[in-house]
């Protein structure tokens, strides 16, 4: 996700130099998050929404609840669909077009976090078994890119879902009609993703765009409230030792509660 797909050698050198003194370019510690602000329910036309600022990364998450046919193998269950959009306003090097692998990875990692934790009570989204169910769309809209979109989007998705409402349907003689009433979505758990990247021998949290440009690899871990791991995703072309993986998980686990607190609005 670098600006020109060309990594500046000078930048690489400088970042490594500064990391070797135990600091980062913006003065943070290795385990520090940037300022995180989350606002909920800011869009009128969405059933749920959240706006996230993580440093200069800026993401808008919209939750829409529509209807459709269920999947054949789960006739009594509603459907969850997560989509990510890397808009061209977010970064000079991003061109308009169909989703690229980074945006697909982002959508799928956030999706797995929501799905694995089984946060949505999909049975409660069924209207007519085998025919009509509610579909929850989570759209992750990136408005400005400065690194760590996965964490920002995951927190935003939880915030948006927490505040989302779904239309109530009444079924009369096999015909379903909306009653006009709206009730909150049942959200059972609040999984939060925290990513750790590796630059040389250093493991650091909440990378900026510059740090992501020079990273060797990334490990994203999603935790639920009990500290259980729901999903993991490693990306990047350099390997991690088992020891490094353990360290990453510890670093991420430490941060998950405070991110969750911001997402659910304490």
């Amino acid at each position, binding site marked *: 996700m670098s600006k020109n797909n*060309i*990594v500046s*050698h*000078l930048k690489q*050198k*400088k970042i490594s130099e*500064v990391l070797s003194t135990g*600091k980062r*370019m913006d*003065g943070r510690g290795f385990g520090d998050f940037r300022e995180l602000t989350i606002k909920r329910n800011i869009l009128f036309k969405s059933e749920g929404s959240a706006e996230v600022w993580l440093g200069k990364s800026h993401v808008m998450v919209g939750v829409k609840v529509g209807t459709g046919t269920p999947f054949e193998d789960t006739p009594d269950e509603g459907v969850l669909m997560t989509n990510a959009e890397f808009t061209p306003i977010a970064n000079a090097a991003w061109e308009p077009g169909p989703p690229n692998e980074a945006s697909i990875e982002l959508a799928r990692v956030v999706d797995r976090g929501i799905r694995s934790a089984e946060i949505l009570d999909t049975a409660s989204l069924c209207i007519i078994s085998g025919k009509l169910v509610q579909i929850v769309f989570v759209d992750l809209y990136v408005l400005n890119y400065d690194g760590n979109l996965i964490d920002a989007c995951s927190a935003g998705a939880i915030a948006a879902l927490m505040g989302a409402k779904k239309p109530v349907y009444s079924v009369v003689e096999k015909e379903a009609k909306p009653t006009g009433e709206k009730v909150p979505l049942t959200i059972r758990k609040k999984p939060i993703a925290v990513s750790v990247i590796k630059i040389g021998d250093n493991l650091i949290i909440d990378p900026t765009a510059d740090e992501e440009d020079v990273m060797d690899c990334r490990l994203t871990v999603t935790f639920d409230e009990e500290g259980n791991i729901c999903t993991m995703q490693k990306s990047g072309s350099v390997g991690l030792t088992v020891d490094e993986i353990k360290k990453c998980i510890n670093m991420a686990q430490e941060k998950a509660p405070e991110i969750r607190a911001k997402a659910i609005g304490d």
Partner: protein
Amino acid sequence: MSANFQDRDLVIPGDVVFEGRIRTGENTYRQQDQVYATRLGLVNYSPDNVNVVALSAGYTPLVGDVVIGEVVDIDLGEWKIGIGAQTEAVMGIPDAVDRPFRTDYIMTRILDIGDTLVAKIVDLDRRRTPILSILGPGLGKVYDGFIMRITPSKIPRLIGKKGSMINMIIRETGCRIVIGQNGRILISGPNREREEMVVKVVTKIELEAHTSGLTNRTQEYLRQLKERSQ
């Protein structure tokens, strides 16, 4: 003949800054009797000229400018260098190497994709592509430090009258600072703290470039930063 604004007023494109005969300077254009601003900025009236000092503008390459850029491509004996202008700049081997030209020069050994350099614009070709050279004092590949970006139109303010502002910053922080007219600044200091001071000061100058008394305020600000670090 009339000046429609007062000196240093903020104007936007389309504002009629002058009516009548006068020499039109930067960021203005004339249509018949009226002179319009073409950019957002502060209008400047002098006895024989009206111009607008733009608050926000991209970089327009000029011959003689020192710029800081990055190699983005290598093609047919030429490096293509991104300098943040409307087109990429180019540089041929004779402008990079002082010695007699050898046809088997491996270009990536001189400058590779991803390398940063300080160069001078020696020409604009007939398609307005900037032609660069790194032959000359203070020019060449950059090995140390980092690049900070500011709006190109604020660069003169950062330099100051006869270099007064930038020399003061260099003196007070002990950092090596190279300014590119294309809005890029190379900073390399004795330690990270000093480098961060430069970043803070330059950020402040960029925000307040259009105000008065800036050199004094900047000096005072620097003094406070140094005190805090002691």
